[in-house]
């Protein structure tokens, strides 16, 4: 190994180098001492700061605790404010309701007549005058000794009937509900004169000979059809839409919820665009919105899979109305299929009659919208077939999972839009459903209406046991009513007699309740449901009481509507009619029972929790409608 070079230098050079190192060492030592001094001073300073930090932390903790306590105080105050606000809303709602009632009463013809009567009375029979005294004496004499003919001629008999009815309703529904119903009835009777009906005139193209000369609708129309196992009806619908005349362009978008009958393939075969959505994510609003997103037309037609245009100019008529009448949307009335049953026929008829949709109309926001019927009438967009401009639809879209069309209609008219409704142009659509379906429908409808129209009065059904008992007893009585009309056709009487016989069965307090089997051939599901209710409620063989059963007024109301419908189209009773009426009676019962169960749910929900059994019922009755 070689030595480093400098070791080989002579000794004279080593000394100055060593002295240099020593000086350097000294300098470093000094520097080290300075650093140690500095560290010491810094440590001293840190210790002071740590102390200050500890003090600050302590202060912070104290302040945090203060904040916490203030926060909890604030939350309590917020809760109090919220409760107070709710109370205020409730009261203002109540005040609004009462004001509405008051306004309606004051604007009704009855009130005006009464005011007129008072003024006249004051003028003709001034208070304290002899004339007034004489009239009072005469009046007392007349009312103390009833003179039937005289009373009838003055309308007193009618008043007495109404008073009896009111007392009956009070017993069944309670005073408050009966009063609400009476007020509602009062307004319903007064409504026709105030219904703002503006006729819509449409240049129809109903004669096939004119089809070739239709003025072209120079717009692209996108048809959106939500589908699940559409079957033959769906195929026919696609063909019929493709055959529509007088349109520049038409595209079809099908929203398929996993059909298993090849509906998607059929749609593709007919040239439609198919979008798939998972069945579990299906809602009426979602499917339609999803379909609309994939369209490119200026007008959007939403139509259901089991509807069918009845002419080749149907879509032209809808589009023509939309184009020439300054309306945001157009829909049309249903026309029943040949297999439509009596009950659905009467539903279509009554719907059009009550909502005044038996003519071509412009619908918009007016005074009648303060009532639920008026609002339902004026916001009438039917998803069975509704045509709407893209511009309007993109702004509003569908929202709710149930009655999404009514919701859209309400929003449109509230924002000042007009809607067109056609009765002269109709679409083929009707259902033939089981009684159990109508039970679910009644339930969902009543719940929805309560949500959409909070002012709508409904009977308070507080007791689950009683509700189940009423339904079971009414079912049994319906079996009796059906048995009473079986074979009635042989007696060759009219429709009125037939309905009267049913009414007698329902209004009779007597009679065996449980020895009559169900006579509805398609009603096994309904029968099982009623049995289930009977078991749940522990109400084995409850006794039917016309005076106390809460379903009775609704059944009578329904029977009245059915009677009106039958008198409109039939004169005599035959076996076919009694057969159809049998099925219709069970469906009417089911509809009333569904609504009754909804009232039970709503009443118990407002009082607190509805309970396990009612929540379970709610789950069962809301699925699949």
């Amino acid at each position: 190994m070689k030595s480093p070079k400098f070791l080989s230098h002579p000794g004279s050079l080593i000394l100055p180098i060593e002295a240099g190192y020593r000086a350097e060492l000294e300098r470093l030592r000094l520097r080290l001492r300075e650093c140690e001094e500095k560290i010491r001073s810094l440590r001293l300073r840190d210790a002071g700061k740590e102390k200050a930090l500890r003090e600050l932390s302590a202060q912070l903790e104290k302040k945090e605790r203060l904040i916490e306590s203030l926060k909890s105080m604030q939350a309590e105050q917020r809760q109090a404010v919220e409760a107070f606000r709710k109370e205020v809303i409730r009261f203002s709602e109540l005040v609004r309701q009462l004001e509405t009632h008051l306004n309606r009463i004051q604007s009704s013809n009855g009130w005006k007549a009464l005011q007129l009567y008072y003024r006249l009375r004051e003028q003709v029979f001034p208070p304290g005058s002899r004339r007034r005294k004489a009239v009072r004496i005469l009046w007392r004499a007349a009312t103390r000794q009833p003179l039937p003919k005289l009373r009838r001629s003055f309308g007193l008999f009618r008043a007495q009937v109404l008073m009896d009815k009111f007392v009956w309703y009070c017993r069944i529904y309670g005073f408050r509900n009966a009063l609400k119903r009476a007020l509602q009835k009062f307004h319903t009777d007064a409504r026709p004169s105030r219904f703002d009906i503006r006729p819509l005139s449409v240049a129809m193209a109903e004669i096939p000979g004119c089809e070739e000369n239709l003025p072209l609708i120079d717009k692209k129309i996108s048809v959106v059809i939500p589908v699940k196992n559409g079957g033959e009806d769906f195929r026919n619908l696609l063909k019929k839409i493709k055959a529509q005349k007088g349109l520049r362009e038409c595209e079809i978008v099908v929203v398929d919820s996993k059909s298993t009958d090849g509906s998607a393939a059929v749609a593709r075969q007919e040239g439609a665009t198919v979008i798939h959505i998972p069945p579990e994510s299906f809602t009426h609003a979602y499917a339609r919105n999803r379909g609309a997103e994939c369209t490119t037309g200026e007008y959007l037609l939403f139509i259901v899979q089991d509807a069918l245009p009845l002419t080749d100019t149907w879509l032209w008529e809808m589009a023509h109305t939309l184009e020439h009448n300054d309306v945001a949307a157009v829909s049309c009335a249903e026309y029943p299929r040949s297999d439509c049953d009596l009950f659905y026929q009467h539903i279509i008829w009554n719907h059009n009659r009550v909502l005044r949709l038996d003519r071509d109309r412009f619908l918009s926001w007016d005074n009648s919208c303060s009532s639920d019927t008026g609002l339902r009438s004026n916001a009438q967009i039917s998803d069975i077939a509704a045509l709407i401009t893209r511009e309007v639809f993109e702004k509003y879209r569908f929202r709710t999972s149930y009655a999404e069309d009514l919701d859209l209609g309400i929003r449109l008219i509230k924002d000042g839009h007009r809607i067109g409704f056609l009765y002269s142009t109709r679409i083929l659509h009707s259902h033939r459903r089981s009684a159990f379906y109508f039970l679910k429908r009644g339930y969902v409808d009543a719940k929805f209406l309560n949500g959409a129209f909070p002012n709508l009065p409904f009977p308070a059904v507080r007791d689950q046991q009683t509700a189940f008992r009423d339904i079971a007893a009414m079912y049994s009585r319906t079996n009796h009513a059906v048995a009473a009309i079986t074979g009635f056709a042989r007696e060759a009487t009219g429709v009125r007699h037939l309905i009267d016989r049913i009414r007698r069965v329902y209004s009779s307090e007597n009679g065996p309740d449980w020895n009559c089997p169900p006579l509805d051939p398609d009603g096994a599901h309904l029968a099982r449901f009623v049995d289930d209710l009977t078991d749940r409620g522990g109400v084995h063989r409850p006794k039917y009481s016309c005076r106390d059963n809460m379903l009775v007024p609704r059944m009578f109301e329904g029977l009245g509507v059915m009677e009106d419908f039958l008198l409109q189209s039939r004169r005599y009773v035959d076996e076919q009619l009694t057969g159809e009426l049998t099925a219709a009676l069970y469906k009417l019962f089911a509809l009333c029972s569904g609504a009754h169960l909804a009232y039970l749910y709503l009443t118990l929900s407002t009082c607190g929790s509805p309970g396990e059994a009612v929540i379970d019922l709610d789950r069962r009755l809301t699925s699949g409608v």
Partner: protein
Amino acid sequence: MKILYVVHQFYPEFSSGTEKFLLNLSTAVQRDAHFPEIVAYTFVEDEGFVRKRNLLIREYRYQGLPVTSIRHRKTPADIHFSCLNADVYKFALEFLQRKGGYDLVHIGHPMRLVSFAGAARDMSLPYIVTLTDFWMLCPKILLTTSEGTLCSGPEGGESCAGLCPEIQQAFIKDRLAHAREILTGAQAVVSPSNFLAGIFKKEMPDVDLRIIPHGMEFRHLKSNLKRYGSNETLTIGYCGVLAPHKGVHLLLKAFLELNPKNCQLKLYGSCFHEQDYLRYLKKMAWGDQRIQFCEPYSEQQVGDVLSDLDLLVIPSTCYENYPLVLHEALACNVPVIASNIGGMAERIEDSVNGFTFQVGDDKDLAARLKKVIDSPEILNELKQGIAKCVPPRIEEEAYMYARLYRRVIERQPPSRN
């Protein structure tokens, strides 16, 4: 609306196309919450009639519809072809007054009860007429000559003098004048086919004619979904009345001449009064196991019967205005071979949704049949042609009529509404 339907005959005794059309229409009107009532002529000699002068009246209900049927105590000789009957006219006036409140009278077939149109007119009631055959133009109904050949129309009665010399020309001219009066007085005249409308338009250009095709009851129909290969066994069918003018003998001749091994022929229907013709047909088919004479089928069985066939033949030698069975077959996805005349040719496009052959020519029919029997796969192509057009449903027809009723009623002076 309260509508009175008038028809020459009705259920349960009679159930041909016109009765079916009227039954469908009136039940649809009832479903839509309107009030239909039917008046029909009958020949039934039954109890339950009430005597009223020279007429017997009976009221009954059929499928929920109120029906009044009338007949003469002694049936007049001209009841089937006269355009005037004093007894019926008087009854019609009384009936319309007594029942009252009708908004419209709809003549479903004018035969025997045509006086209701006159009575309605005299009471200022609107009425409409549906033409289902040539009765208003030709007392023989079928528009055939005395020699059995086809006629193109009476031409004011001039043609009848030469082609049907057995009918007095004065009677024909009188009858045509009455018919014109009835049709021009109607608020609307409806034809189910362009062909029928064309014949009437030629004779009476001033009549307001419109087309409303008859509809099918799809509930009872069933689609034939069969696909055919080259060696398929085929079932050929005929459905309808077994009468000479329906040309069933032509079909039998063609079938026997072809003598196909992979084919059977089913003839559905009854002969009514044509017993001799039925014997003739049975004699032709004697001993042939492939040919079956089947009973007439009910309306509920239409789908089963037609969807069981691979091919339907309509060999009529008369004009068929709107053969329901042809439309039912197309609705069941069954190809049709039909004569090349009348309402049949209007609906069957040769080689697209079926075949047409020269009317009365069994050789031409045999050639068409051979084409199908030799290569059954041709039926697949015809089925594609059928699928392009959906025949109208009864609801569509009823809806078109409902709109027409509304228009007619709205057009009336306010006092009527």
